[in-house]
């Protein structure tokens, strides 16, 4: 039986097509301003890669902040449940999921069965999210994808006290004016994110193992800063951005089979 999970996030839309537990195809595109279309396009891309048509799919589950506006999906499940499910499938020992996405951050406590036990979510401010990093990368004229590697070269991270995107940006500009090394500033930004996420993590409270999902998990600098702050090593799956869509596909499989 073939199923699909579609995760329409604030920044990117992802799709995963599964057949009896095996991933057949995945896709990832920018969401843009029309989240409904983005979900559709992500699904179509994945279908094409798998050489399938929509009629071949037994059940489609939508997740992510754009889930409610989709009309081509069968069921809608929150990204909190889906990330827990996806993360559990790639790392069954994970008890805490830290999901840092484009526009919000979540810390989810997961049970042995992959089900959500508790969660905290910050969607009021952009601190610690992909959007925050994008703004900082622009302020420093550095490629977003290079931020992680660059920050690892720092020996004395700059102090960035504010976690508010707007204030942090002006702090970064001040550091640039002072002549602080770019690598130190980036490392300072990552530390500021780690402090912020740490505060959320202890509220859950976190248990090992900790798995990190979402686009920010691709930034090795944030991962290392968080590991230092949490005093534990983080599991980063091969496709951290797809964990929500994967979870949605697994739920689709469970429900279609039920």
């Amino acid at each position, binding site marked *: 039986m073939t199923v699909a999970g579609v995760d329409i996030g604030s920044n990117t839309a992802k799709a995963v097509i599964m057949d009896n537990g095996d991933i057949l195809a995945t896709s990832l595109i920018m969401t843009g301003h029309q989240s409904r279309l983005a979900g559709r396009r992500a699904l179509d891309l994945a279908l094409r890669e798998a050489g399938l048509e929509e009629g071949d799919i037994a059940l489609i589950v939508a997740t992510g902040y754009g889930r*409610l506006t989709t009309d081509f999906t069968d069921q809608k*499940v929150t990204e909190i449940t889906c990330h827990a499910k996806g993360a559990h499938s790639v790392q069954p020992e994970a008890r805490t999921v830290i999901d840092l996405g484009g526009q919000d951050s979540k810390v989810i406590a997961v049970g042995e069965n992959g*089900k959500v036990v508790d*969660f905290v*979510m910050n969607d009021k401010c952009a601190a610690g999210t992909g959007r925050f990093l994008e703004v900082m990368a622009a302020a420093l004229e550095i490629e977003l994808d290079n931020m992680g590697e660059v920050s690892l070269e720092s020996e004395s991270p700059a102090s960035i006290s504010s976690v508010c995107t707007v204030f942090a940006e002006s702090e970064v500009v001040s550091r640039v004016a002072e002549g602080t090394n770019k690598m130190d500033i980036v490392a300072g930004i990552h530390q500021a994110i780690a402090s912020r996420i740490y505060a959320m993590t202890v509220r859950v409270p976190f248990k090992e193992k900790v798995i990190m999902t979402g686009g920010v998990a691709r930034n090795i600098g944030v991962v290392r800063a968080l590991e230092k702050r949490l005093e534990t090593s983080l599991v980063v799956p091969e496709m951290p951005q797809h964990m929500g869509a994967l979870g949605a596909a697994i739920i689709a499989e469970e429900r279609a089979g039920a």
Partner: protein
Amino acid sequence: MRKGRVDKDEVSRLSVDVLSRLQDLTGDPYSYARAWKGRTGGKVMGFYCHYAPEEIIHAAGALPVRITGENRVISDSGAHLQSYCCSLARTGLDMALGGDLDVLDGTVFVHTCDTMQRLSDIWRLDAGFDAHFDVVLPGRMEGDSSREYLYQELGSFRDRTGEYLGPVDDEALKRSIGIHNRNRVLLEEMYRLRRQDPGVLPSDEVLMVVAASAIMDKEEHNALLEELLGTLETRLSGGGPPPQSSLCKGEEKEEKIRLFGIGSVMDQWEFLRMVEDAGGTIVDDDFCTGHRCAGAVAPEGPDPIESITARIWDGALCPCKHAMSRDRAGYLLERITGSGAKGVLFFQFKFCEPHAFDYPHVKKALDEHGIPSLHLEIEQGSVSIPRLRTRVEALLETMRGA
């Protein structure tokens, strides 16, 4: 139509009429007060807190109207209140300074939290109403001296308001107490019917009914409640259609999950509708614009001030008040269990210190009893339903074992 059954259309129409009236009232609470004033020539007194002795205001021939702030962008009040004050205080003051509360002749402030006490001072100096009264309740609601103090304070309030609104004699006050008691009994009955079957009325409508009790003349509200309860009883006895209010949409796919709401003012109707739409329902609550207005009546006796003292003293405790012998967590657990709720929604205003202080203690008790809960923090004027929806849905998914 089978015998003994009420015409389906008739029940729906009745309900829609009552509820559309409630929507008008809660959507524009001060229009009612303006019309009432035009009709009776009486004075309108605003109040913020459910501890306000409405009976005394009512007995003096005035209309007590509750101020609950509103969803608005702050303008004038920014010059008087810091942004770390709750939105209830900030939007309410903004309304007063902007002239939106011009129907009020005066205001009654009950000392609950620090923000309310300071708001009272600013209000007295800057809001420009004719009359201003403070009722300073004891912080600790236990011990003989505290109770005696409360009795004296209520007596003093009666005298002070008497100078402005006209004297209130015992007989008028007793009659007023009777009307208010009736209101609390009827509200409690509505809650009881809902606990029996939450499908009888969605939670947004329940809280609208309670909100209307602090807007309308109490006798008129009692009549409305009696009509509504008749409809609910017909529905419960299987005579009526499933709830088809103007506000309900979609069909029931599965039984809604019963939740218990904890917080202060709850007038976010869109939020409540979203919870219903997401498959949950707030079957009972401890909102100060909700169940705290129901139930506890003033025992009728020779001394009406003593009656009101007893009602306030023995009624549900607000987190602003303290009593060693009355643990709020224990009280809430009992209410939650009694309502059949399987989970709890904390719905709190940002910067509401009394509720924030209460939260860890109550949350710990819930965790120990395996009751899942969700803490939502909002500010009037910036409530984002889609954001809250993800959290609420995630809680419901967790409870369903997704």
